[in-house]
């Protein structure tokens, strides 16, 4: 009899958990229930995601999470952060430990198709470069034959590096350290000749972590395309739509010239139908996404448009110009899908 009870209990557990698996929209419902977005960020990359002196996370990647929280929950501060190394990030997302990964992550075929992930947009167009001490006397990446190179494991950077040296018929010795702080420390101590990662990351390391930034230079060669953007797990399309359009609204707002400052004025007075649709004066968009009609208004009011976020984080902290990340109307690649 005892055995029967145990077996019955076991069977019931199996059935219960199996039923749980089949739920759709689980991520979105989970976020609404707990009241905050769990956001995976970098362990510390100034300009993208890093904690400031007050312990607040800030950066262009952090702003994507804040925009999503503003759109879904009405409050950009309803975000909790999980700092992740490059090697930990996808497992954290796959296992549901985080709701969204916004951690300067390159979109690639393998990641999109085999890892069960969805890249919802590109918030930074980047490319891989090399950071060297000026004392090395090197002016081009083609002179790097035989160099020792510091690189983070589990990144596209690590693969591009091997590809580049292979294509050029050069050799190199990798030093692979998972934590970015340990890796940069090894570079600055002279363990490596070269540090390689995305050019924006190099700028961040050079200006924020080097004792004397003028002793270091970034080589002119950009050896890869690195479209960086927020990622969510597959299986909750409603949630991926929310993230995609929250980010798109930031770019759309910049295209329309709606800023944190003038958003109230625009909402009250603008006669542009596009702006009226974006800010929910003409209802419909919020309903389509299953959000409050003020979703985009909340984003712009609390986080700002894409240009503002870029200016505040990337230009101010790293001194990087818009470049590829300018709006398409200014010769860049940022182009918002129309909110309509």
């Amino acid at each position, binding site marked *: 009899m005892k055995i029967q009870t145990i077996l019955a209990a076991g069977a019931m557990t199996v059935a219960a958990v199996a039923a749980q698996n089949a739920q759709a929209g689980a991520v979105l419902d989970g976020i609404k229930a707990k009241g905050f977005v769990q956001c995976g960020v970098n362990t510390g990359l100034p300009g993208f995601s890093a904690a400031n002196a007050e312990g607040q996370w800030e950066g262009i990647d952090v702003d994507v999470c804040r925009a999503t929280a503003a759109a879904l929950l009405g409050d950009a501060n309803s975000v909790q952060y999980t700092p992740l190394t490059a090697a930990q990030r996808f497992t954290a997302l796959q296992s549901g430990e985080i709701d969204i990964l916004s951690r300067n992550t390159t979109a690639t075929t393998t990641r999109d198709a085999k890892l069960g992930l969805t890249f919802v947009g590109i918030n930074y167009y980047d490319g891989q470069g090399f950071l060297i001490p000026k004392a090395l006397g090197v002016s081009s990446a083609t002179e790097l034959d*035989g160099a020792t190179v510091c690189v983070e494991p589990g990144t596209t950077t690590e693969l591009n590096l091997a590809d580049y040296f292979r294509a050029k018929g050069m050799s190199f010795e990798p030093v692979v350290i998972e934590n970015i702080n340990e890796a940069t420390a090894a570079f600055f101590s002279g363990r490596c000749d070269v540090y390689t990662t995305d050019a924006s990351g190099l700028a961040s390391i050079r200006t924020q972590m080097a004792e004397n930034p003028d002793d270091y230079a970034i080589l002119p060669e950009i050896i890869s395309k690195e479209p960086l953007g927020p990622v969510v797990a597959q299986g909750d399309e409603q949630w991926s739509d929310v993230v995609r359009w929250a980010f798109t609204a930031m770019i759309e707002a910049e295209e329309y010239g709606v800023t944190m400052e003038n958003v109230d004025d625009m909402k009250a007075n603008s006669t542009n139908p596009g702006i009226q649709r974006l800010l929910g004066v003409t209802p419909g968009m919020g309903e389509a996404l299953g959000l409050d009609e003020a979703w985009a208004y909340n984003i712009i009011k609390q986080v700002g448009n894409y240009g503002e976020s870029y200016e505040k984080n990337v230009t101010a902290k790293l001194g990087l110009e818009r470049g590829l990340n300018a709006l398409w109307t200014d010769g860049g690649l940022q182009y918002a899908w129309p909110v309509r």
Partner: protein
Amino acid sequence: MSKPQNVPGNVRSKGLVDYLNDENVRAVLYQIVAIGLIILAGWYLVSNTLYNLEQQNISTGYGFLDLEASFEISETMIDYSAKSDYATALLVGLLNTVKVSFLGIVLCTIIGIIFGIARLSSNWIVRKLATVYVETFRNIPVLLQLFFWYALIPGAFPHPRDALEPLPGVLLTSRGMYLPVPMADTAFTMMGIAAVIACVVIYFVKKWAKKRQDATGQPFPMFLAGLGIFVGLVLLAYLAGGAPTDMSMPELKGFNIRGGYNISPEFMAVLIGLTVYTSTYVAEVVRSGIQAVPNGQWEAADSLGIRRTVALRKVILPQSMRVAIPPLTNQYLNLTKNSSLAVAVGYPDLVSVSNTTMNQTGQAIEAISIFMSIYLGLSLLTSLFMNWFNKKMALVER
């Protein structure tokens, strides 16, 4: 006398209830149910995981092992390049783990025995120094020690351009230590074979010497004879191979030192960290082992006129081994398992390569299952060897 329920004819005539009330039948039944439940739980976990992965469109299976790895590894004991597949990459990681664990076990045993004996020294300074060593390194977490050594090594030595050269051909730099090594030659393969042959010969000579000593009481200078056989045979092979003298000397070329044999700072940090940490435990095991041998054994050796050093080697240590081997096995297992911390300082061990593989393929469960089974295998092998050794050393009742 026989139990009635064990007679087949008797059982058949009984009802089902009687059958279930049988103590023996029940015992078997309980075990079957227990095993069944374990299998059910395992099946549930596996199938549920597979189902979930499929729901999330995450690929499963071990097919990725044949794909091109596309990343480089700095230290490899076998042929490896970015063109090799993931299976080869994991093998490189495994060999690096085995290398550092094996060397660590050998070194920590030697250092541990020295400090263990030193802790019992009659010399006050030696005794106290050994105590300070043991108590310091035993009580700092091993991960912190790895970080310490890794910060120290590249920091303490100059850039390859200003390399220190304490001995001709030996270079110390922030990129590690460089040693001159002989150029590859067939003579070295022959020397390896000669070394194996020498070991076999020594084994038989030792057997013969023991037999002779048992029979006649005449001791045989085994150590000198063994050394002679080994060195003689290897030297003979070297001369037979044409005595090659070409050396690969490390020298600065471009950015780095090329040629010679490089011992990387990552490897040094891991090896020193693990060795020092574990040697303190080995020292304590050795000390307690020696103290477990009754004092009468020392006195008996004294009364036979055996010198203290010989008594330690021939009388006390062999007996203390019996006490020491099981806890020593634990320490060896710990060292092997702790070697997985190497990932923190960038030594490309099994965990480091698996982490990269996991991240490039996104197949976390498969990658983790691989390295978990490998660690389990390594630990079981170590255990098996130590159990065999323990049995060999155990007291033989005459």
